[in-house]
């Protein structure tokens, strides 16, 4: 064998098979009610039950909005980071990293303290007389989106920043030298070069967002139920494991489909950062 190091991959490969592929396989089998009497009843239930479809719709809607905002913000932050001096860059990097290291629970609770009716923001606005009654900033979908965007922005920043930093600056100089305006240069040169990273970041954020649990539970005030919470209830409380498994499979297939579509648009190699 020409690749002597391939043996080093074996332990990891075993781990992935044992701890990931096998359980996922079992999950898929469970969603069809096992081998003995395979059935599609859980999938039929997903198609027939309005409430499950509403939860799926809520989940996809929130995650899509979150992804758009997070990628937009992430792009701006990454752009600033890539083009500022090394000292400021370090400072900004810390600003992104420190919240990134905080637990999801702490972040959700912090937002709750800021945004609730008697929280800092509403009290502050009330004190200045700008508003007459507290704004409904949290315990609703709006609050969930704020919390999720905050959590997910770093995941958008890093891949985009990596691409921007590795970009050949001479490309832009070349564009400028043939008379393109800064805006033109950005649109025709900078953006297309960074676009695969944007898609990659978007995909990462979207997939992460689909599995969100704690943030919607805390910031949604009980009235924003996302898929992972429903799966958890089905497993632990209502004992509908087949349904939980079928929903997980739907989620998995949706994620894979998304990956496939995005890779068709920008190419797998570029998507995975090999631009």
């Amino acid at each position, binding site marked *: 064998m020409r690749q002597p190091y391939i043996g080093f991959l074996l332990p990891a490969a075993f781990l992935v098979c044992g701890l990931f592929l096998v359980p996922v396989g079992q999950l898929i089998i469970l969603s069809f009610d096992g081998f003995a009497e395979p059935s599609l009843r859980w999938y039929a239930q997903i198609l027939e039950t309005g*409430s499950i479809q*509403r939860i799926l719709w809520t989940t996809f809607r929130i995650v899509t909005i979150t992804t758009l905002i997070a990628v937009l913000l992430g792009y701006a932050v990454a752009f600033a980071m890539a083009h500022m001096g090394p000292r400021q860059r370090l400072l900004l990097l810390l600003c992104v990293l420190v919240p990134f290291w905080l637990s999801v629970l702490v972040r959700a609770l912090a937002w709750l303290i800021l945004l*609730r009716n008697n929280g800092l923001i509403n009290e502050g606005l009330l004190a200045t007389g700008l508003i007459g009654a507290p704004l409904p900033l949290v*315990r609703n979908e709006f609050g969930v989106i704020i919390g999720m965007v905050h959590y997910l922005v770093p995941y958008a920043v890093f891949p985009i920043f990596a691409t921007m930093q590795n970009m050949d600056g001479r490309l832009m100089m070349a564009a400028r030298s043939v008379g393109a305006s800064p805006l033109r240069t950005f649109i025709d040169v900078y953006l297309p070069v960074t676009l695969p990273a944007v898609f990659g970041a978007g995909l990462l954020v979207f997939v992460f967002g689909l599995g969100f649990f704690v943030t919607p539970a805390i910031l949604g005030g009980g009235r*924003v*139920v996302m898929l992972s919470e429903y799966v958890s209830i089905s497993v*632990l409380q*209502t004992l509908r494991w087949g349904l939980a498994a079928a929903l997980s499979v739907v989620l998995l297939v949706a994620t894979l489909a998304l990956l496939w579509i995005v890779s068709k648009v920008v190419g797998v190699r570029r998507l995975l950062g090999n631009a």
Partner: protein
Amino acid sequence: MKKHSFQADLVEIAAQEVKAGRLHRRDFLTLLAAAGAAPALGAVLGSNPASAQASEIVLANFGGDAINGMSEAWGKPFTADTGIPVRVDGGSPLAGKIKAMVESKSVIWDVCDGDGFLCNQLGKQGLLDEVDYTIVDKSKVREGWAWQHGIANYTYSFVLAYKKELFPDKPPTYADFFDTKKYPGKRSMWKYQMGAMEACLLGDGVARDKLYPADLDRAIAKAKSLGDDVIYWESGAESQQMFLDGEVVMGNIWNTRASILERDTQGKVTWTWEDGLYCPSSFVMPKGHPAPNEAVQKFLASILDPERQIKLLSILGNGPTNPAASAMLPPELRRIDPGYGDNVKAQAIRSEEWYEMNYDAAVEKWIDGIAG
């Protein structure tokens, strides 16, 4: 989040009590250490852990304060009587976990804490062992609470807690709870249907003894009528915090949290037993549990002892299931026992039959109904 139940909440309360210095840290730590090292402790106490006789009984509950409380009130005296150590494992024995253990034949719990209706619900699925009523005395629990596959171990209630200043003369009713014009401010209810549904029906004019079979659609419509004035709590701690932060003026919460709130706010927040929902918790034995059956049955019999039940009430605030225990209560505990005399007369009693048949569908329908 692990906590989807009242039982889970107990553990949390206990831990805080220790922090606040109201429960002796040393005792708590000793107990925790003992819980983690039960076989060693057994040797110290003189029983031989290597013998075929039950080396220990593993009691699973929802952790926190209840680890200490159940060790103290139920584990210690049982060990003193029989020499069999009782190890309390706060591993949250939700129905899904019990099912997973039994079906994979890797049961590590002998006795599990859970809601009363689970006895029949899981029992009928073949996941539980039966209670041996030649060893366990049926007459020591309230009528109807000795099931084939489990027995009521303690009680708790969903009660209406409120800001005292809003109701200086008389406590609010659930009609007031839903009257946001007259009493502005946010309310809170449990996110997972139980208690909240009953509050909605009572607020909509259903009589206490006509709650079941429950009209879930009517309850959901009533819940939605609160619009943005309702915040659903997820954990007991959250329900308490909402009052402390002044986010809500009224709430349908667990009695254990309500009594702590009253203490911590010097009575600014209090609660009424009127129209509360009185519920039995229970112990069940997962099929294939490790300890010998007889020892576990004896343990179930032992927890019905009135003094041990009163001890649990004094530590955790959970009521006795043995009516004799309620009758023996010292005056300072009468106020906090959901099953005591006038307290229980003022409340509705949860229908275990209805929940046994409808819990799964009700939770799902409720979650869907209140979302969005």
